[in-house]
């Protein structure tokens, strides 16, 4: 009997598990929104005609779902079947062929259509979320409190010292000892010496700190010609960093995207419909106006075909400045070292306007080089370090700690200065 009970219990548990897995599948299938923005959004909107037709009501226009699937997966092949509606559509849109999506499964297409249906019903409203701001108060600085407390304690200590000396004086008088005339504390040499020492230490500390900080610009957050929000692009819309910063895997510079890269998407996305953008100062930003600002640089007039040759470069304010004698290569860190962008740039996907996250000081670089492991086993280059491989095998090197950048010479001068 006990066995049966145990069995039913485990059966129940596994059922629960199975169910939860099934629901996760549901979740994946329902992620039509993500699929939509990945695949369709550059040419289609839900309620608006862009390069391609508005997708709202697509199911009504395509009663046969298999046909719709075939069309989306390979429009060119489908056109050849001679389907009248498809051919009309093709002609209507100036014979601009729709991209091919052979990688989409039927399920995924249905998920996209599902999203289109729900999005078509909802009027586009933006709900500002208050969650972020609520938490802010907690981070308030306690140093002022500590400062006041220290000051009060210091005053009490001073008063007590004074009282102590007065009492001593009285006691001495009582005993009949002659005591020298008390010196006022502002004339007392030991007090003066103490104050001087304290001032010297405190002043010296701040001077040194200030001098070290010269030329560093942590938290630098200049106003840019266009309010470009990484939060909207990389955060909400999950655009891969490399889509815009194409150099990051290839070379020294990550590169700032040129106007034509922006226009790849913004030819289609001409208005901002996401959550309200508010700067850290509380100023509300009109996203759509910022897109129009981009159009000015691009020389693009809506409704007309874009002539890329009219574009002018956007003069962004450079935030991350390394001195001229420092060589930094993005590919080395991101492609070879597999370092995440956020390690140096902070939570960029949550930033509105970009702010310098790290102080980019040499100490900061060196520290990371001391701690970071290289991709010792995965990258074929490091096979030449035969000794380290042997040491890892025979346990001379702690395999959990691995081989750090420093061990292969990553803290030597001419790794960055030449």
């Amino acid at each position, binding site marked *: 009997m006990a066995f049966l009970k145990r069995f039913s219990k485990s059966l129940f548990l596994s059922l629960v598990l199975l169910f939860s897995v099934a629901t996760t599948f549901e979740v994946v299938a329902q992620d039509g929104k993500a699929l939509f923005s990945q695949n369709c959004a550059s040419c289609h909107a839900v309620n608006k005609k862009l390069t391609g037709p508005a997708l709202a009501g697509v199911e009504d226009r395509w009663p046969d779902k298999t046909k719709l699937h075939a069309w989306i997966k390979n429009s060119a092949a489908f056109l050849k079947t001679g389907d009248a509606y498809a051919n009309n559509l093709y002609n209507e849109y100036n014979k601009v062929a729709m991209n091919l999506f052979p990688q989409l499964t039927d399920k995924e297409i249905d998920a996209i259509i599902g999203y289109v249906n729900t999005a078509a019903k909802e009027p586009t409203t933006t709900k500002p979320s208050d969650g972020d701001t609520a938490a802010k108060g907690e981070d308030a600085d306690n140093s002022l409190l500590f400062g006041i407390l220290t000051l009060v304690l210091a005053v009490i200590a001073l008063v007590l010292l004074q009282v102590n000396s007065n009492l001593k004086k009285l006691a001495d008088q009582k005993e009949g000892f002659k005591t020298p005339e008390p010196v006022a504390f502002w004339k007392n040499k030991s007090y003066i010496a103490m104050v001087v020492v304290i001032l010297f230490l405190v002043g010296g500390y701040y001077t040194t700190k200030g001098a070290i900080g010269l030329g560093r610009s942590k938290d630098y957050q200049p106003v840019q010609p266009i309010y470009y929000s990484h939060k909207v692009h990389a955060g909400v819309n999950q655009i891969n960093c490399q889509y815009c910063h194409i150099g990051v895997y*290839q070379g020294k510079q990550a590169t700032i995207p040129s106007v034509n890269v922006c226009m790849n998407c913004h030819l289609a996305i001409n208005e901002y419909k996401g959550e309200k953008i508010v700067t850290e100062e509380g100023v509300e930003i009109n996203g759509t106006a910022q897109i129009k600002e981009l159009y000015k640089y691009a020389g693009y007039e809506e409704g007309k075909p874009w002539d890329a040759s009219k574009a002018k470069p956007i003069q962004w304010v450079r935030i991350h*400045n390394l001195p001229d004698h420092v060589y930094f290569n993005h590919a080395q860190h991101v492609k070879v070292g597999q370092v995440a962008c956020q390690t140096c740039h902070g939570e960029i996907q949550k930033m509105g306007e970009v702010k310098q996250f790290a102080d980019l000081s040499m100490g900061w670089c060196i520290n990371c080089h001391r701690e970071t492991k290289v991709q010792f086993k995965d990258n*074929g280059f490091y*096979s*030449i370090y035969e000794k380290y491989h042997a040491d890892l095998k025979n346990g001379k090197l702690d395999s959990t700690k691995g081989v750090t950048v420093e061990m292969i010479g990553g803290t030597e*001068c001419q790794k960055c200065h030449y």
Partner: protein
Amino acid sequence: MRKQHWQSFGELNNTDAFKQSVDNEFKEELIVEDDNKGFLETKAPRRDFLKYLGFSTAAAAVAASCEMPVKKAIPFANKPEDVVPGISKYYATTYVQDGDAVSILAKVRDGRPIKIEGNDLSPLTAGGTSARVQASVLDLYDTARLRFPSIDKNEVTFEKIDKAIAQEIANLGGAPIVILTNTIVSASTKEVITQFLAKNLGSKHVTYDAVSYSGLLLANEASYGKKSIPSYRFDKAKVIVSFSADFLGTWLSPVEFSKQYALGKKIDEKKPEMSKHIHFESVASLTGSNADERFLHRPSETPFLVLSLLNAINGQPVVGIDDKLKKSIEATAKELVEHKGESLVVAGSNDLHVQVIVNAINEALQSNGKTIDWSSTFNIKQGIDAEFATLVADLNDGKVGGLFIYGANPAYTWYDSKKFVDGLKKVKFAVSFNPKADETTLLCKYNIPDHHYLESWGDAEIKTGFYSFLQPTIYPLFKTRQWQDSLLKWSSSSIDYLAFFKQYFIGKTGSETAFDKALQIGIYQAASTLASAPVFILATVSTASSAIGGYKKVTGTEIFLYQKVAIGAGEGTSNPWLQEMPDPITKATWDNYLVVSPTMAKSLLNIDLTNNGQADAYEVKPPKHVVEIKINGVSVKLPTLIIPGVHPNTVGIALGYGRIKSLGKAVVNDNGEPNGANAFVFASYKNKTLHLCNEAVTLADTGTKYEVALTQTHNIYNTNQGNRTEIMKELTLAEYIKAPKEILEEREAEAKPYGGLSKFKEQGTIYPSAINERPGVKWGLSVDLNSCTGCGACVIACNAENNVSVVGKPEVLRGHEMHWMRIDRYYSGNDLDNPKVVFQPLMCQHCDNAPCENVCPVAATNHSSEGLNQMTYNRCIGTRYCANNCPYKVRRFNWADYSGSDSFPNNQKEVLNDVVLNMNDDLTRMVLNPDVTVRARGVIEKCSFCVQRLQAAKLTAKKESRPLVDADIKVACQQSCPTNAIVFGNANDKHSAITINRVENPNRIFYSLEQLHVLPSVSYLAKVRNVAEEGEAVHGAESKHEHKEG
């Protein structure tokens, strides 16, 4: 057997001044004006001190407290698909200048070419370059380039000038137009010219080369019926004999020949064999210095010598030359005859008859078809002097209506330039397409400057059927136009040159795809048409020999005009890199001068170099005697250098100097006077060809003196441990075959106190831990002294790659030159007039036990785990301890702000030469390599093994997740080397070229100053000279030296 090598006469004689200079710790002069007083004795030093202190404190405070400037980051508006900012692209193109053509790759970084590399795919040069090729990228950014089309020096638009010239052509009224160019190597351009000539009947094209090969061309026409120059195969020749043909430096196609020559000089240790090179010359040349045997003669003796050689080869008696030369000619003939079919004789003479005899010699030696290849002939030198002389006469007779000048500059280079200038004034109109305001262009009414070659489209048919393409690597910087476009326009063609060029080569290659591919690799070879070797016309020999029989013997002093490797006939004069490159032979910069032999110095200047005090009074530092050279009433005054390797009755002057101001800051000194003097005035025109030599020279010491900036003794160092005699190792082939382990044994003996070579590394130091482990990479470099010709391509390549500053003549005089790499010239042997010469390229040796590292008080120089001796500029405080402690003297100190990187602009105006400041112009600075820090004043710098390239190479390998291979990395000097003398790579890798180089040459390898136990990362392969006699007798100076040591 050890030989005494000496760099200077002082070293040879061990003079007082030499001893003093090697003991002098701080050899370089201070840059502050010397007021003959010590710092403390000067007026109010305390006040000055306070002033400077106050100023620097205030300046530092101001500089530091300034607000950080707002910098912009401006991306492309539309990014071209294949351009990634910060990543260099390489475009195949072709260096073309005055008929010289070398296939190259231009390294383009963010839209601007910054470095020239050789094109490995070229079957001719196979990746080799020359100093001039390397420096040509700087010419692109030359501030003296003409920036717009002009009429009478006033800027006009292209439309206006086209209209004006069309009008001029219409007004000619049948008078012919002459297109005067230097050699045109481009096949499509020739077609353009043909089209233009067809439109303008009666017009003609005249080719004029400043240094012409007329004699050779005409001789080949006489001997073979072909007015062209065949291909030479120095690699197939076991015996090479040259009569003043400087084929490694300036003759015909030096890069290609160097490559071939070095192949014959490579030694396989298991089978030691090498070619033998016998050189006859009058004035020391690069090629002569590399020869196994060199014989000196008068320029006027050349015809007799070649005739004697022909006779000797044919077994006839040798008469008419002196005994010493007779002996050498007979010995040479013997060698040649022994190697029939494997020998080659060339001559640099421009005498038709001499070249005919040389042809006869080569025929007698059966070279034709073996070492001389007629299936593919050179197109690079086509000028015939007589045609130009006729043109000059026509100009003066007023027979020419319009003159178009491209490339040629006869107002400077023609021996009788006055006559040409007079004639030029008689033409109705003259158009110059030259890119700079040279001597001829200034006399032309119209000027439409041509693009620099890096901005141009085009082709170079270097040899028949071998094409090398040009493609633009940058948008034209100025309002310039390719001259072919102008010609096409004026022959009312409907298409521009680009379309014309494309059409022409699509026709040749067969399709647009084939053309694109050829353009991409830069090279196209037409299917070879195997022409049979032409038949030698024997009859010409007797004509030539009887003509030579009629020549008179000369008894007086003769003059020989030579081209410097860097300057050529004037192509390199306006380039500061080339001007500052020490000439391989004389080690002089920025000037030309009269070169005389030590023997002549005795009679002319009263300087006996074997006399201790007199040598010191002459050598290096003291200003040189200025001598007046006079021929037929033409006189030139030049300072005199005493150079071993010059015939006692001959003097030499380099061409290319004495230019006009408008060519740029590099051709004049600070007073606006030209550097050096024009030597073309001494050329002679005889037998319808121009000879760069002359007779009846009178020389007179003017009594005045002039400073020449020589670098030869700037870097001498002597200690009890590291004596200079051992910095070089050299032996003869005979010795080498007899005792192959000689050098190894010598090294073994040096290391004996430490338990021999095997234990030397560990036992030679009390700090064995100083020799660190190299877990991954250990960089190493090797120089084969047998292949190195000393041409200097590496020096300029290093300048371009590493942003090495130009310092100007006054600074070189102070010993402040900045070259990271220098080529030391050593003499050896008994004969002061004709010693043996060895070149040794010397860069930072990246010692594993580096003496510079442990004396730096701020650890600005230290060692990397890859074996690099690192230099960190921003740590350096300029104590110069490291430079003093370096036994190789390869560290350089920035005495002034040469590179303009100081935060106070223009603060060096009073201190530095104009040409240095000109190098800091925004335009010139475009040549800087952005991957290398531009050094500021007050820091030490030195060779870094091109660490930026090493890092990039490792990154490439890492990105592809594979181990490093040799193909990833070529350091700048290695890349530029035409002879592959330099090998570089990872010495930890068993399969790398550097490891193989060291393992396969155990008997020739040596490390410079090895006994110091500095453990250099640079190894050398000893020079082996192919001479018959087994070493020379121990030099007198060596016994002296040993005496000193003992």
